[in-house]
């Protein structure tokens, strides 16, 4: 019963430990997944924000670039069709400029001569102190885009292209340009607020707002770089400054009050301006977080269900294991019992068979096989030095063949039994073996060994008396174990030799066969 209880406890313990380990694994995996999900959400927000903002900024940047290209193209086409008549007088030039403005829906289109005199639709004025681009060398025939700061705070874009081969009133016309109010551009491009949480802006590289519109938390007249100084670390702010001044696109997260907004900025080609998009940190994050939370909730439910299923599974497994182990143990117990019974039975039969094998069936003394087994044991004892007192008596029944031949085997068998009986009665403390047809061996140990000589004398006396009475005549020779003997066989040989000597003596004494 103890073994059975131990086994049962082991199986139960294994099941419980297995359940606990798997439960811990599932819990750890769940927690890791939840943490991983949060981290993945943040990464996703960053990626989506970047993509979303880039897309928005790029789209508007392209619109501005297209606008610049379009205006440049329009100016080039206008100057291709200017005629001599258009250049005859200030009035005709103004008329040409007016037609061009109407045709291309330009706010202000103007030509500039070599003395920086600006010819517009309604006026002629000095442009040197008003338009910085007139001081630039436009010999490289490239479109010049510049910002004009007007007294009063408004800012305009000037897109200028160089002219060649056109003169007016004896002076070379060197540049034509269109001037666009940034505020109008911002209105056209839907700057400002895209929705409640997305804003667009256009800034100079030095952080000045070009479109005079609020940009998220920043007032229209605030310098973006100055305004963001307290919202960024020193390194982040320096990077932002560097990006603005060198026209490098980038992204940064602005922390103000409790919100964290993402600012994305991309330079507008050839202008020195920075297109900016500001998106409330919560907009994308909230949406993605909502999806993520829903997924997380579902995942949590799955894990709970899996956990419950595992608990049920392990409970059932535990019960089944318990049942199976009980059944197995019962079976094992039964098998063991049967085996034990069979073993016991086999042992019994073996003993019986062994008894049969070790016992001479005729005389009832031990057989030659038993003697040989005993001799092995004794040999081992001699080898081990554990045996020093031993004597072997070899006895041979005289006249057995004569009895068998003359009286019959039944008389011969009886003669053998009588001989065995004589030895057994005489050597009561020693095993008697029948090792051949009429040959017996007695192993003398202990008390019989101590009395070996009187016992031998008594045997010989009885035998000599039986000669005359035609009783059992046994020729007996006895030898003792000596230190020189390695085996029982050595003792046996000496005893056997003495037995033949005795046999000769008895024959001379007239031993006869029983009739």
């Amino acid at each position, binding site marked *: 019963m103890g073994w059975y209880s131990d086994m049962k406890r082991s199986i139960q313990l294994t099941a419980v430990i297995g359940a606990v380990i798997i439960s811990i694994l599932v819990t750890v995996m769940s927690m890791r997944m939840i943490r991983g999900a949060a981290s993945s959400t943040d990464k996703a927000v960053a990626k989506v924000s970047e993509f979303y903002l880039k897309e928005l900024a790029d789209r508007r940047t392209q619109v501005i670039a297209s606008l610049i290209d379009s205006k440049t193209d329009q100016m080039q086409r206008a100057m291709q069709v200017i005629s001599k008549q258009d250049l005859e007088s200030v009035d005709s030039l103004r008329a040409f400029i007016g037609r061009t403005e109407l045709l291309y829906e330009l706010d202000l289109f103007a030509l500039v001569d070599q003395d920086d005199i600006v010819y517009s639709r309604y006026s002629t004025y000095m442009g040197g102190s008003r338009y910085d681009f007139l001081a630039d060398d436009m010999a490289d025939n490239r479109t010049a885009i510049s910002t004009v700061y007007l007294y009063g*705070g408004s800012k305009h874009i000037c897109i200028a292209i160089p002219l060649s081969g056109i003169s007016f009133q004896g002076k070379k016309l060197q540049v034509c340009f269109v001037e666009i109010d940034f505020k109008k551009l911002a209105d056209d491009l839907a700057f400002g607020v895209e929705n409640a949480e997305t804003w667009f802006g256009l800034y100079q590289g030095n952080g000045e707002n070009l479109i005079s519109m609020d940009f998220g938390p920043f007032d229209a007249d605030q310098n973006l770089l100055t305004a963001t100084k307290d919202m960024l670390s020193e390194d982040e702010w320096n990077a932002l400054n560097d990006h603005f001044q060198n026209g490098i696109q980038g992204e940064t997260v602005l922390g103000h009050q409790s919100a964290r907004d993402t600012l994305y900025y991309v330079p507008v080609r050839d202008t020195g301006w920075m297109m900016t998009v500001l998106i409330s940190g919560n907009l994308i994050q909230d949406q993605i977080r909502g999806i993520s939370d829903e997924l997380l909730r579902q995942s949590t439910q799955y894990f709970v269900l899996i956990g419950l299923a595992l608990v049920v599974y392990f409970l059932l497994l535990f019960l089944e294991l318990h049942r199976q182990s009980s059944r197995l143990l019962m079976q094992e117990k039964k098998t063991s019992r049967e085996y034990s019974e069979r073993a016991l039975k086999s042992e019994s039969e073996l003993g019986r068979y062994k008894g049969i094998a070790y016992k001479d069936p005729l005389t009832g003394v031990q057989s030659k096989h038993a003697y040989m087994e005993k001799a092995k044991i004794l040999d081992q004892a001699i080898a081990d030095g554990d045996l020093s007192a031993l004597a072997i008596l070899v006895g041979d029944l005289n006249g057995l063949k004569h009895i068998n031949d003359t009286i019959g085997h039944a008389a011969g068998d009886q003669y053998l039994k009588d001989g065995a009986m004589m030895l057994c009665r005489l050597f009561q403390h020693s095993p008697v073996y029948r090792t051949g047809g009429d040959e017996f061996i007695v192993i003398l140990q202990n008390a019989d060994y101590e009395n070996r000589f009187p016992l031998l004398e008594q045997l010989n006396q009885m035998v000599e008396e039986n000669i005359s009475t035609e009783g059992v005549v046994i020729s007996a020779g006895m030898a003792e174990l000596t230190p020189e003997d390695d085996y029982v066989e050595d003792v046996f040989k000496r005893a056997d030799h003495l037995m033949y000597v005795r046999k000769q003596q008895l024959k001379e004494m007239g031993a006869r066969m029983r009739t």
Partner: protein
Amino acid sequence: MKVKAIFLALLLCVSHCMYGYAAEETEHDSAVHFERELDSYKPLKNHYNFYFTYKIVHPWWDAVALGIEEAQRQFLEHGVIITYEYMAPPKTSAIDQAERLRKAAEGAYDVIGVDVADEAVISPVLDELMEKGNKVMTFSSSDAASDCKRIAYVGNTHNVEDGAQLTEALCRKLNYKGNVAILVGAEGAPCHEERAQGARKTIGKYSDMKVVDVAYDQDSIENAYELTKEFLARYKDLDGIVCCNMSNPVGAARAVKEAGRDVVIVGMDHDREALEDLRDGIIYCLGVQDCFSIGFDTIQVAVKIADGQLPGELFPEKTQEETTLIYQEDAEDMLRILYGVVQ
């Protein structure tokens, strides 16, 4: 934003009441009035052509030009086309201005307007043009001589007072003791000379104050810078500089900053660099003229003159425009109002 604007307006009103001269005669709530609208006058024609000339190509007159453009735009909205030329030489020159005026007289201009470079030289030219039948007006900051026959003037009518008020502020800052140098713009330019005159007069009131030098920068910042460096080198005990035009305070501030000297600078106008120096405490105060209104009113008066109207009920012989003293605390708002910039 609105709160700031109201605050600035109140501030400017208070400063104007304390030191102002124009405040007694005009109502204003800011140094510059950008929200102007045409008066109720109905032009007699639907197209006018004007010629204007001024002292020198300079941002100050670009500010005036914006007022002109706004008035032109508003007339256009009423179906009245105004075309004009608004011309100046790269360097101040009364001779150049006289030539331009005579040439303009040959053109088909309804009115010729001039910001007088030198009243002694230009006033006779204007009389000449008037005698030839041209309609002539003066505008901006410099009128012609008082006996000139020009029809009307629109602009700063109180240059002497401007110079005096600026200098008064400087004297007060110096506790009415010290040596002062005066930077002037173009020699002969009435507005510049008058401000210098007002400065001398003010300093003359105080026995412990003295004008140690006077120099003309010819409306050049670089010249103003060099002249100030000379002042600083020559007068180790120089305490203040009065600047009478727009380029003076910019150049003076550059030199004083460079030298690291403690010299009080007062000056004129609204140059962005000067406003930044005001904000940074390099310049003590600036007199800001309402250039936008000068330009706007010049067109309104020119239209009336073109229609044959004379000074009287429709417009005064001299349309006064304001000058407002502003100090360090006003600089940020002025930078925002004039340049849309907040640092």
